[in-house]
């Protein structure tokens, strides 16, 4: 029973308490780069989830075999392997998405979330908690990208998932799909998460 609660905790912490881009400020490159539309953001999130899950499983299983001195190099090679798989899968099954994401799929290799979870969690924990940790972090990351994507696509194009929501009266905010808009939206979301979690912490204290 306690075990189950523990697993649930590992899963849950990635969803809010340690939600990757906003709280840990990890994996910022893809958060900013591919969120000009919802589809791109979600595709990127799922690709990252896949790599995170597979690399966490591998690292966790190999944790007693890999010598400490070369562990980072070993993790990077493991991650690069799975990223290659994800990249080829996207290119074969969803060519337009693969094209839109461009070099940001291979750049998952150096996404700090994945190396960070391997180093901070999977190498010290057995298989099941590592899987839950990867799922939680991956889903939290996907949700964050989706939120960024919704905001930027809605204001930048007046649509969500290519479905036009705002009528002709709406003048698209070009800034939202430009790099500057990405930084600013991200900045405001970090502030919002700070605000909400501070409020939550206060209510718990009082």
């Amino acid at each position, binding site marked *: 029973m306690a075990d189950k609660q523990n697993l649930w905790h590992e899963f849950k912490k990635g969803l809010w308490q340690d939600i990757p881009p906003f709280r840990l400020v990890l994996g910022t490159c893809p958060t900013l780069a591919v969120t000009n539309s919802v589809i791109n953001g979600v595709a990127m999130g799922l690709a990252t989830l896949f790599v995170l899950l597979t690399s966490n499983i591998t690292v966790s299983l190999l944790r007693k075999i890999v010598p400490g001195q070369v562990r980072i*190099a070993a993790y990077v090679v493991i991650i690069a392997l799975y990223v290659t798989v994800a990249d080829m899968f996207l290119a074969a099954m969803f060519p337009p998405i693969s094209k839109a994401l461009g070099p940001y799929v*291979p750049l998952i290799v150096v996404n700090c979330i994945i190396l960070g979870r391997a180093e901070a969690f999977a190498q010290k924990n057995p298989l099941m908690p590592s899987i839950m940790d990867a799922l939680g972090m991956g889903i939290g990351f996907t949700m964050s990208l989706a939120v960024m994507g919704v905001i930027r696509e809605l204001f930048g194009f007046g649509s969500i998932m290519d479905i036009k929501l705002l009528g002709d009266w709406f003048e698209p905010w070009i800034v939202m799909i430009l790099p500057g808009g990405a930084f600013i939206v991200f900045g405001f979301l970090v502030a919002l998460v700070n605000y909400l979690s501070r409020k939550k912490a206060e209510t718990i204290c009082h």
Partner: protein
Amino acid sequence: MKLILIFISASLINNFVLTYFLGICPFLGVSNKTENALNMGLATTFVMTLTAAVTWPIYTYILVKFNVPFLEYVAFIIAIAALVQLVEMYIRKSSPAIYRAMGIYLPLITTNCAVLGLALFMVLRDYNYIESIIFGFGTGAGFTLAMLMMSGIREELEFADVPPMFQGVSITLIIAGMMALAFMGFAGLIRG
């Protein structure tokens, strides 16, 4: 002429930090003091130029020749990690003064996505050897420039009255957004 265009494009117009969002981690993490920002920028520029010089032959003469270009991610990341390690060892032996200034930043560069991004863009755009090296150097120069500007603003920001929920990462990101908008002004430099 093309080389100059590549340099200007890599450093100003398509600045890696502000238009491709590569190298955000050090950009946010190490930009609180001008001195640190400058050292990090110089170390990164050095590694980027070397990376371009090393990964181009690896891609052209090994991966393409043996028809295994899908191994590029694994090959590049290993090459970069090895390169950073060698540079660190060399600097530690040859000049302890530089090592003290740059040393702690070198391991961080391995996971700087701008370095891997550089190698990937280099392949994507079919640069030749000289162009790749110039591209690497220009990208590094642009990174240093962005780091320096950010650190300058952040040093001033310490005296500003920022609302509590915007403090830290949040305000830094918003400033970066404004810098990115300002950098768009450079887009008129090159036509076509």
